[in-house]
């Protein structure tokens, strides 16, 4: 069953075509990779899916429903969350508050309930505390509970951003270069984490990454983009063997020989 489907998606900024006629499908519960050289349009596709940019032409379907005209928060409510290439945490809030804030959708109490502190408020708020606590222990952030997010080490900031994304109980998690700036050791641990998250939360994961060992290690299916166009699609082995992909990354054969 496919959870996400892009049909001939095009995005133009003025005369520049950032994404041109790209189509692909993401299977439910799979880990899907999106790779390509810098400026290939990977992050633009993420922005299109999450509603930050509006699609110029084509259609994006999530579980069969179109997301084209929706505001980003509506897309998030449908069950799509993401992380950012340049980490966007709530920097001055603590680790715990970052996660707790993101849990807000699992409570329903209104402004008035909050002001008069009725039973509904207390019960739901307690539920949120428990969820945040649980998520912290799953992600191994418990001992950093009261640390201000901006002061966390880089690797943990990435981890916290993933935790925050998971807090809204998404069906599709999109990671934009989660391993950027990580050493091989941290990258290996991240790979394990991505697999573990997928199994534990029954998610579908889409990853943008430049670390090829991560992509080849975890992704079941990969799409390669170049200059906004889809270059190749397939399993890790198929993509690695594809001459077009090698050309995009390393240049043409003659050039390499020279």
């Amino acid at each position: 069953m496919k959870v996400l489907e892009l049909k001939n998606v095009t995005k133009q900024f003025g005369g520049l075509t950032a994404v041109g006629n790209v189509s692909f499908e993401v299977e439910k519960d799979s880990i899907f990779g999106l790779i390509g050289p810098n400026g290939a349009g990977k992050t633009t596709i993420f922005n299109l899916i999450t509603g930050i940019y509006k699609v110029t032409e084509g259609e994006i379907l999530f579980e069969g429903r179109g997301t084209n005209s929706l505001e980003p928060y509506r897309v998030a409510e449908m069950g799509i969350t993401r992380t950012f290439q340049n980490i966007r945490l709530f920097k001055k809030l603590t680790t715990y508050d970052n996660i707790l804030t993101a849990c807000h959708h699992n409570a329903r109490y209104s402004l008035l309930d909050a002001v008069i502190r009725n039973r509904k408020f207390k019960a739901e708020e307690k539920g949120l505390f428990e969820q945040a606590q649980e998520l912290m222990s799953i992600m191994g952030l418990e001992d950093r509970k009261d640390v201000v997010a901006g002061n966390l080490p880089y690797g943990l900031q990435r981890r916290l951003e993933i935790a925050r994304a998971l807090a809204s109980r998404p069906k599709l998690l999109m990671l934009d270069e989660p391993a950027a700036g990580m050493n091989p050791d941290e990258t290996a641990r991240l790979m394990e984490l991505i697999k573990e998250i997928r199994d534990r939360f029954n998610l579908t994961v889409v990853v943008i990454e430049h670390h090829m060992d991560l992509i080849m290690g975890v992704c079941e299916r990969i799409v390669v983009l170049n200059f906004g166009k889809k270059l190749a699609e397939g399993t890790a082995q198929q993509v690695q063997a594809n001459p077009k992909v090698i050309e995009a990354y390393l240049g043409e054969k003659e050039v390499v020989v020279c």
Partner: protein
Amino acid sequence: MDWFYIKGILILSGINLMAVLGLSLLTGFTGLFSFGHAGFMAIGAYVTAMGTIKLGLPFVPALLLGATGAAMASFFIGRLTLNLKGDYFCIATLGFGEAIRLILDNVQYFGGARGWPGIPVSTNLTTVVILDIIGIAVLANLIRSRHGRNFKAIREEEMASQTIGINVFRYKMTALMISAAYAGIAGGLLGHYLGFLQPKMFQFVKSTELTITVIFGGLGSISGSVIGALVLTSLPELLRTFAIWRLVVYGAAVVFIMITRPQGLMGGYEITPTNIKKLFSRLPGSVGKKQAVGGDKK
């Protein structure tokens, strides 16, 4: 100093506190700077006065009417301007505040620029203190809820807030309307304390004064706003002895605080029983865990 004089200062501090509390939600917690809050105060003041004089309402319902009036005005202005980013929103509110004042200058029904005398003097210290306590309690409860956390999330990182499903526009609107309602109540109290209203009282300077108070107290701290309002309203009075130098000293005091403590007096911390306990456990002698509570890490 006799009690009447001190009472007067306390009442004025309390009225300013009301307006500052509202602005604290908008600026300190949601991260939107407004330079038009005197406009909302003006609307609140005139609508409340209209309620008591022309409609013959009792004082408190008239105050609520004033708050509603200010909130409605903020709804319309918010619809038009809340999509603007940072500085542009700031300029738009500035224009709004001045526009309200100029409109009132020309509405003869309310006395125009000459002012509106003969407003019943119904505001007393008890009313102000009770309303301030209610105001603080409402704001504190609001902040310590999922809604309050969403306001702070928008202040910190707007795009990330959207991707975790926060309707940013709606929350900004809510913050603006609540803060306008607070300003409206403050205006209503002011009119019924002085017994006289004039558009000149709600000039741009009034708006800046409110914003300065919020920043002085510390963005994102209710206790900071309370202390800021009390200090900055009474400071010019304490400085009366300096005669003509009084406002210079006032300005110097604000500049001094901003240089030595850019995050404001409270800098995002709150005075609560738990935080006080934590502070004592951290004092030398008891080796406690050293961790920041709020956003005060530089």
